[in-house]
């Protein structure tokens, strides 16, 4: 059986409370053991079938998990494919990603789910867990066959991209999904309030003469969704929280013991609406970049656990969608390859404990989605990230593995370089 030994790294695994210099042993694609390096007397004989990685000075964590990516395949292969999207994930330290259902055709039935999983098996660099559509065609009219989606391999349902406007349907989705054992991921947005807005509503939108989206468009819908989670006992995961009021609502819901989890995107944790600058369409996404007060509230939420996941909302768009008038430009940015560094930047700046950061990228998303991942405990699948947190890198869109280059972080120097990404004991990415 193939063996992998990762020696001398700082093993950091919130799921087991491990933090220290350890040797990590992997056998047959699973974690065999880990031992404090200074007390490890195991004799290591490199040879055929044995790979040894010297991780001295590096951080070794469970492989990162992203509960919110758009892989664009099937239907929009010119933006991203399962191949390029998973390569991008691997380059970002992610070993498992959930892909949203807004493909063409929509992933609302088992044939699409199976197509995605087969493609991922053939060409994917990392584990792909599909998210099924909540409603048929994401039209918000009637429920998709959730049981069938689950059996085919979906792990959650969501109409992400298309807010579920109809509260009655959302209620039924939360009720019905619980018998299928899947959480409902909600893109919470009152589209009557967001209207034709294209950025955060505030002083910056006023200055630029662009239509704004108020925080209330998100907060009011999250309030509704939390009420419905309470009513139904269903499992609710709130996608891409951007507004400070949303954090308060979620904190309250979790305080009540409701089955509510939530994610914030690295860009919402680090940028404000000022990033729109002079109509930069790579700073256009939905929900939009907000203000300093919102960014601070999201960070506080991540610190105290109100927000338990960091998720990218990786949304590749081609130049065709982005190199146009700001108000006509498509929403979204690529995020897989910058996510870790952005979150780690908060740690480096003393704004977030390392434990909260790594939890939000590993065990918390695994728990939120019911995945048996995000941990290095003995016997678990050997999905591992090895990271040099002391090294900086500068974002060059042309060097991203993603097929699309729509990032607002161009030219920025970030902290933390992914050195190796290991999926099931196999190295799928190595920094050059």
């Amino acid at each position, binding site marked *: 059986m193939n063996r992998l030994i990762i020696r001398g790294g700082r093993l950091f695994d919130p799921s087991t409370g491990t933090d220290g210099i350890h040797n990590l042993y992997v056998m047959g694609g699973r974690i065999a053991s880990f031992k404090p390096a200074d007390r490890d007397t195991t004799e290591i004989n490199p040879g055929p079938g044995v790979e040894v990685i010297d991780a001295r000075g590096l951080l070794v964590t469970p492989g990162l998990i992203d509960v919110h990516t758009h892989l664009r395949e099937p239907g929009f292969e010119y933006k991203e494919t399962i191949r390029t999207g998973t390569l991008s994930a691997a380059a970002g330290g992610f070993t498992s990603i959930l892909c949203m259902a807004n493909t063409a055709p929509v992933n609302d039935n088992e044939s699409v789910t199976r197509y995605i999983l087969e493609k991922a098996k053939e060409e994917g660099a990392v584990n792909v867990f599909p998210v099924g559509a909540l409603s048929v065609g994401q039209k918000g009219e009637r429920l998709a066959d959730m049981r069938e989606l689950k059996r085919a391999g979906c792990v959650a349902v969501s109409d992400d991209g298309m807010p579920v406007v109809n509260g009655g349907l959302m209620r039924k989705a939360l009720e019905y999904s619980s018998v299928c054992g899947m959480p409902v991921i909600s893109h919470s947005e009152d589209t009557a309030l967001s209207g034709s807005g294209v950025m955060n*509503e*505030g*002083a*910056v*939108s*006023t*200055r*630029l*003469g*662009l*239509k*704004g989206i108020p925080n209330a468009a998100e907060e009011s819908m999250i309030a509704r969704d939390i009420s419905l989670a309470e009513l139904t006992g269903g499992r609710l995961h709130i996608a891409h929280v951007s507004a400070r009021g949303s954090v308060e609502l979620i904190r309250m819901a979790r305080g009540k013991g409701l089955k509510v989890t939530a994610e914030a995107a690295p860009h919402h944790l680090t940028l404000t609406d000022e990033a729109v600058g*002079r*109509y930069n369409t790579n700073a256009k996404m939905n929900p939009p970049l907000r203000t300093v007060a919102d960014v601070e509230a999201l960070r506080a939420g991540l610190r105290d656990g109100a927000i338990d996941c960091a998720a990218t909302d990786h949304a590749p768009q081609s130049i065709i969608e982005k*190199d*146009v*008038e*700001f*108000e*006509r430009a498509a929403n979204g940015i690529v995020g897989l390859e910058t996510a870790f560094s952005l979150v780690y930047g908060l740690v480096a700046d003393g704004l977030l404990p390392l434990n909260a950061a790594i939890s939000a990228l590993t065990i918390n998303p695994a728990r939120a989605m019911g995945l048996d991942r995000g941990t290095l405990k003995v016997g678990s699948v050997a999905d591992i990230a090895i990271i040099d947190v002391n090294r900086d890198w500068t974002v060059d869109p042309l060097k991203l593995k993603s097929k699309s280059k729509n990032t607002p972080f161009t030219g920025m120097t970030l902290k933390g370089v992914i050195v190796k990404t290991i999926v099931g004991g196999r190295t799928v990415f190595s920094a050059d």
Partner: protein
Amino acid sequence: MRFKSKDLLGIEDLDSQDIELVLSTAGSLREVSEREIKKVPTLRGRTIINLFYEPSTRTRTSFEIAAKRMSADAVNISVSASSAVKGETIKDTAKNLEAMKPDCIVVRHSASGVPHMLADYLKCSVVNAGDGAHEHPSQALLDMFTVKEKKGTIKGLKLAIIGDIGHSRVARSNIYGFTKLGAEVVVAGPPTMMPPGIERLGCRATFSMEDAIADADVIMMLRIQLERQKESFFPTIREYSMLYGLDEAKLKMAKKDVLILHPGPLNRGVEISPAVADGPYSMILDQVTNGVAVRMAIFYLLLGAAKE
């Protein structure tokens, strides 16, 4: 003297010296329009393209006449919104036009930021003739020119801008311009049309028209889009007119020698009563006349002064 930038995209980017330069240049060029032969050879051989994605006969005509009085060749291109959506992108259009070697493109577009995109793509000068709800710099310059001509100075004056501030590029450009020249600017309109953080542009905001026009030296009435009623920005035209229309009764609250500006076209009887629009304080036709001089000055400062 010439502009620091190759483009005129907004008043936000200008400092008071830039603005004064345009106003004084316009002052010396205005006389050209009073001559029998209304033409100077300054921009002979220069090509100016008026690229209008939004229909606006007056602004386009004003730019066209300004170009011709400076002896430039002016070409008008009107792109209907529908064909623009289906057809080529703004960038394609811009690159195609640039291949014809224009010296300046004057652009009007319903989307904020389009002139800025063009300015980044193109080597030639770009003049913003109005972009979305963002800026309309030539309008603000002609407004300042008109006021300065009548009042001698802008410093220390009180300007009230009344109406749909949220959707108004005229308001934004004038807030920047008048405050940069030392005026006090107060904007007033219904709360539904008052954008958040407008004060950051340098003005004071109020929902009371009376508050805004009290002792004002200049009142600028904005055109109200009647369609906004359908989106519930205000209940009825009648109510709007009662609260934010300028009639003779309200006019009494302003200074005795108040000037009334309006960027046109007017909704008579809605935001401005016919008696006020045609009354002695109205500068509306002066604005149109001065618009040509100010646009001649803009072309001169962007294109002509280069050779000197």
